[in-house]
């Protein structure tokens, strides 16, 4: 098999793999919501209740201090 054919196969399987990842992510987002693990939609309120005196949508706790900077999704 020449390098061009290998590239083509690699390209195809890579794209197929990423499609699976993408759909898995969609499934993960929606199933987490159905199962009540995480309500993603409440995060939309972060923009609306953004006064410094407003209660955070999810308060950062002492235990989270070490993880600060990570993206919670």
């Amino acid at each position: 098999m020449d390098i061009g054919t290998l590239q083509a196969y690699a390209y195809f399987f890579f794209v197929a793999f990423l499609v699976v990842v993408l759909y898995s992510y969609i499934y993960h987002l929606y199933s987490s919501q159905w199962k009540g693990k995480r309500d993603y939609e409440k995060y939309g309120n972060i923009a609306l209740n953004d006064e410094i005196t407003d209660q955070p949508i999810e308060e950062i706790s002492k235990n989270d201090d070490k993880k600060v900077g990570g993206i919670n999704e």
Partner: protein
Amino acid sequence: MENRPLEYDYTVAKWFMLATVVLGIVGMLVGVILAWQMAFPGVNLMAGEGLAEYTNFSRLRPLHTDSVIFGFTLSGIWATWYYVGQRVLKVSMAESKFLMFLAKLHFAIYMVVVVAVVGSLLLGISTGKEYADFEWPIDIAVVVVWVIWGMSIFGLIGIRREKSLYISIWYYIATFLGIAMLYLFNNMEIPTYFASGGIGNWYHSVSMYSGTNDALVQWWYGHNAVAFGFTVPIVAMIYYFLPKESGQAVYSYKLSLLAFWGLMFVYLWAGGHHLIYSTVPDWMQTMGSVFSVVLILPSWGSAINMLLTMKGEWQQVAASPLIKFMILASTFYMFSTLEGPIQAIKSVNALAHFTDWIVGHVHDGVLGWVAFMIMAALFHMAPRVFKREIYSKSLMNTQFWIQTLGVVLYFTSMWIAGITQGMMWRAHDEFGNLAYSFIDTVAVLHPYFTIRAVGGTLYLVGMFLFAYNMYKTMTSSRRVEESELQNASPMGA
């Protein structure tokens, strides 16, 4: 010591707002001069023969592109970052002297870079790479500015009260990381003076890449500068400002996450569409085309999410010029992210490449989407940072319609010019001889170049109205109470 309640500190946001307005006017004024030069070449000599070196098209063109990209847009991104960042993380800049110092340093060094860029470009000092024109000393200063911004982002995140990072923050982080990577790799250059042991000017450099590789890296950079400068941070803005101004939470937060990852992955592979029918490997060209078409999905994912955020609240579009700006921006985002993929299809590209249609595409994106969104963001911020209502709603409406007309004249004239140009370039007789010479196309395009210049001038007039409205808001508008600043921005008649 007086015990004052904690407030957000907008000092640096205000400085960047001012920079946005000033650099926007400079960049667009130069753009308008260029447009008139294209229509009437005599304008190249507008300051006389003696100064022609500084006023000709080729000297001014990089000044236009760099001042609207790295001046107006970046200032707008930073103005909104120093506003939105604090609010969605629920932490004030005033809480950290270090972050405040960094932010001020960020602005100060950025201003030095602006002066160096304007000066060097006017003197004709340039690497010759499009949108990567700066010589190595300026590049180093740019990296310093960028690192300081990064420290500011992650520093603020580090002291936040809100545990989850709102979607806009994801986009700001992506802007930071994306541009850092792109800028570093594309600006790898060798200072010739030092490499050669003292030949030539100390500031001169050559790219570390050459030939096709240079082109590939350049357009990987060039296209993704559009991605991470003109798309990602502007999406960050609309995800915050449209919900906040309309009082409606984003329609689907899940869709915003999905569109984010889609955009991050797909955009990076689309740059090859700038090199279709060039010397880069064919599969790279095809990949550039395919990924450009796929890019419609995440782009529209965000844009549709924004339009659906207005569900049941469409009366606000008619009532508020600020919402109008954002909805038109979102619509132009959809429009230009459909137009781009069409141009990236190989057969269309054969016609469109190197023509004015590309220029039209860029400008419906930047004038309709980027600049409208940045101005809307500044309008929303103004009453909150200056504690005064927006000076004039009717002036905003006037600006909106003048600029919308300007954009429409701009892109329609460039569509016609571009397609005409493409068709004339490839027209031939039965023996394969070209039917037209280049100058034939120039003569035919003259009216469209004039229409474009009129469109650009209208947009610039709108910029002056914007600047005046912002100035009056800052200095003499009615003072407002905190209670008036919940959602819809207060505006004077």
